C-alpha cells in the first residue's frame, strides 16, 4: 500500500507489539453508544486502559452479521441521534488527542454508500482513520470501496472465516492490507466461542499464506479467553462484551449511569492484562 509519507499506524503498532513479544488488544465500541459524549469519554480512555487498536462501529439499522448485543448498541446509538457525520467527528476528536493508536471504522456498506463513497473515504482519511472493516463487502465487490479506499490511503481489512477454504483464501488475500481479521466461528458476533485448538490450526494456514498480522475475533468475552487467543494470534478483538458492559451501565431510564465509563474501561483493563500476560504465563502450555 502506498501511503507516501503519512504514518502507517497499523504497521507501526504491530511492529511495536512484535518487539514487545506480545499480542495486541483490539476493542470495538459503537460510535454514539449510548450517546455521543459518553461514547467519546469511553473512546478517549481506551488507549490508557490498554487498547492497542480501536475499532469504531458505524451504527446501522440492520446489522445482519451481529448478535443481540451489537444490534442493541447500534439501535441505542441511532436512537441518540448518531449519524455518519458525527461518527467521523468522533474519529477527528480522537485523532487530535492521540496520534499513534490505530483507528478502524467498522460497519456495513449502506450508510457509506448513502454518504457517498469517495466523500466518506476522504472524510474518514482526513479525520484520522487508518482503515475500514466492512462486513458486507466481500472480495467479489472490491471495485466498490476496497480499491478506492486503498487509493485514498486507507487500509481495507479483510475478514477470513472458518468457511474460507484454501482456494478462496488466495482471493481473500488479493487486496488485503493492514492485518487479517480471522472470524473464529461460523456465526454472528457475541454468541458462541471458538476452541483455541481449532483457531490455532487456522492461523497456521493463514500464516503460510500471508505475512500480514492476524487478529482473531468473535466470541471472545473474558480475560481468560482473550489470553488463550493472545498466545496464538497477533491481536485479539473484543466487541460484544464491551457493548454489553455499556448496556449494564445504563440506569432504569436507559441513561448512562455514573459508573458506566469507568466500568467499561475497567473491563478493557482486565482484558488487556489477560492479553499482556498471556505469553509469559502461557508459555509452558501455549
Amino acid at each position, binding site marked *: 500500500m502506498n501511503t507516501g509519507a503519512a504514518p502507517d499506524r497499523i504497521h507501526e503498532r504491530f511492529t511495536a507489539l512484535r518487539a514487545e513479544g506480545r499480542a495486541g488488544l483490539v476493542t470495538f465500541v459503537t460510535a454514539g453508544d449510548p450517546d455521543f459524549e459518553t461514547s467519546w469519554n469511553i473512546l478517549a480512555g481506551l488507549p490508557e486502559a490498554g487498547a492497542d487498536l480501536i475499532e469504531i462501529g458505524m451504527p*446501522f*439499522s*440492520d*446489522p*445482519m*452479521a*451481529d*448478535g443481540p448485543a451489537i*444490534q442493541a448498541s447500534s439501535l441505542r446509538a*441511532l436512537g441518540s441521534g448518531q*449519524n*455518519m457525520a458525527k461518527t467521523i467527528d468522533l474519529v477527528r476528536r480522537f485523532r487530535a488527542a492521540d496520534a499513534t493508536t490505530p483507528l478502524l471504522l467498522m460497519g*456495513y*456498506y*449502506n*450508510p*457509506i*454508500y*448513502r*454518504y457517498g463513497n469517495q466523500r466518506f473515504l476522504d472524510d474518514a482519511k482526513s479525520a484520522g482513520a487508518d482503515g475500514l472493516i466492512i*462486513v*458486507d*463487502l*466481500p*472480495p*467479489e*465487490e472490491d471495485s466498490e470501496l476496497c480499491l478506492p479506499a486503498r487509493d485514498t490511503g486507507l487500509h481495507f481489512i*479483510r*475478514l*477470513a*472465516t*472458518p*468457511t*474460507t*477454504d484454501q482456494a*478462496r483464501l488466495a482471493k*481473500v488475500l488479493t487486496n488485503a492490507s493492514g492485518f487479517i481479521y480471522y*472470524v473464529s*466461528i*461460523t*456465526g*454472528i458476533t457475541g*454468541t*458462541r466461542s471458538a476452541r483455541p485448538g481449532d483457531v490455532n490450526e487456522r492461523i497456521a494456514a493463514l500464516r503460510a499464506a500471508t505475512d500480514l498480522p492476524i487478529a482473531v475475533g468473535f466470541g471472545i468475552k473474558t480475560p481468560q479467553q482473550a489470553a488463550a487467543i493472545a498466545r496464538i494470534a497477533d491481536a485479539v478483538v473484543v466487541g460484544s462484551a464491551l457493548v454489553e458492559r455499556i448496556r449494564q451501565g445504563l440506569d432504569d431510564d436507559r441513561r448512562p449511569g455514573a459508573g458506566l465509563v469507568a466500568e467499561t474501561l475497567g473491563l478493557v483493563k482486565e482484558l488487556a492484562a489477560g492479553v499482556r500476560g498471556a505469553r509469559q504465563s502461557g508459555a509452558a502450555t501455549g
Partner: protein
Amino acid sequence: MSTPNTFRSGPDEGGHFDLFGGRYVAETLMPLILDLERAWGEARTDPGYTAELDHFLAHYAGRPSPLYFAERLTQELGGAKIYFKRDELNHTGSHKINNCLGQILLARRMGKKRIIAETGAGQHGVATATVCARFDLDCTIYMGEVDIQRQQPNVFRMKLLGAKVVPVGSGSATLKDAMNEALRDWVASVETTYYLIGTAAGPHPYPAMVRDFQSVIGREVRQQLDAAEGRGPDTLIACIGGGSNAIGLFHPFLDDAGVEMFAVEAAGEGLDSGRHAASISAGVPGVLHGSRSYLLQDDDGQISEAHSISAGLDYPGIGPEHAWLHEQGRVHYVSATDAEALAAFKLCSELEGIIPALEPAHALAHVIRHCPGLARDHLVVMNLCGRGDKDVFLVARHLGVEL
C-alpha cells in the same frame, strides 16, 4: 441510456443488472453462495432435475394454473378484456410453491438436511413448510411478530406442517427483520443449512434463480392466451413487494416490445404519509440483504420501516432486476394504497366469486384504474398470485365487522 438488444440476458457473471444486484454478504456466506451458484448452474441444465421439477409442479402444485377471463369485472369496468392468471389455485394458495419446489429439489441435490426461510404474509413460509414436510427436511421459518399477529391462520398452517416458527421482535418485527434473522441463522449454520429465499431478492444467484422458477407463470400465460385469443397480451399487471410474482409474469415477455407492464407497489396510507412500502416510487438505491436495489431509507442510510396492510408487500426493498427494469423504463412501477386494495378486494369477491389475497388486490386496484379507458379488444392479464383466506380476519377488522 441506450436500449439494450434484450431485456432478458441479465445478470452478468457477478450477479449485476448494471448498478443493481451483486453479492453483498459476509465472507462466511460467500463460499456457500458460490456453491449454490454452481449447483444451480448444473441443475438447470440437467434433464433429470427439470423432469423431476416438472413432475412436482404438475402433480403436486397443480400446474398449469388456469388463465381465466374475468367477464363480470370486464363488464363492470367497461374497457379492456381482463384475464386473471389463477396462481392462487396452486397448492398452498399462492405462486410461492413454484419457487419452493425448485429450490427444495436443489437443496436435496446439495445434500442439505435443514431448511430456513423468512416469511411476511406467511405464504412463502407455508410453501416452504409444505415442501419440507413432503421431502422430510427440518424446517425453521423466521417471521416478524407483527406479521405473526396479522397472519395467524398461516402460522398455524406452518406448525401443522411440522415447521418451527421463530418470532422476530427486532426492528419493525416484519419481513425485513425476519430476513435479517434468517441470515444470522444461516451464517451460524452454513455447513448444514439451505436458505430458501422466497422472493427475487437477496445476493446473487437468488434473484435470477427465483425469477427462473417463477417464469413458469409468464410462459403459461403466453400459451394459454394464444389458445384463447390467438395472440399475446397487451398489458401485464402484477403486485410487487420483493417482486417474485411480477418478474415471473413479466420476464418471458420483456422482449415483446408491444407488451406494456405495470408493477404495483404498496402505497400503504399514501406515498406522502411516510407509511408505505413503495421502494421504487419513494426510495433510493442502496445495499441491503445481499444486493443493491431501491430501498426505503433515511439520509443517513438507515433502513426505514415499511408499512402496508398486506404483510407480503411490507418490505422496504425490491428485487434488483426490478430496479434495473425501472431505470430502463421497460416496466412501469405504480402504487396502490391500503384503501384502494381493500376496495378491490371487495369488488373481486362480489363480482367474480374470488376472494383474492391482499397482495394481488393491489394489482387489481391498478386494473380498476387502468382498464376503463382501454379498447375492448385490449388484452390485460393480471397475476392473481394468492388467495385471500389468510386475510379474511384482517379485512373484517378493517371493515369494522366482528367475526
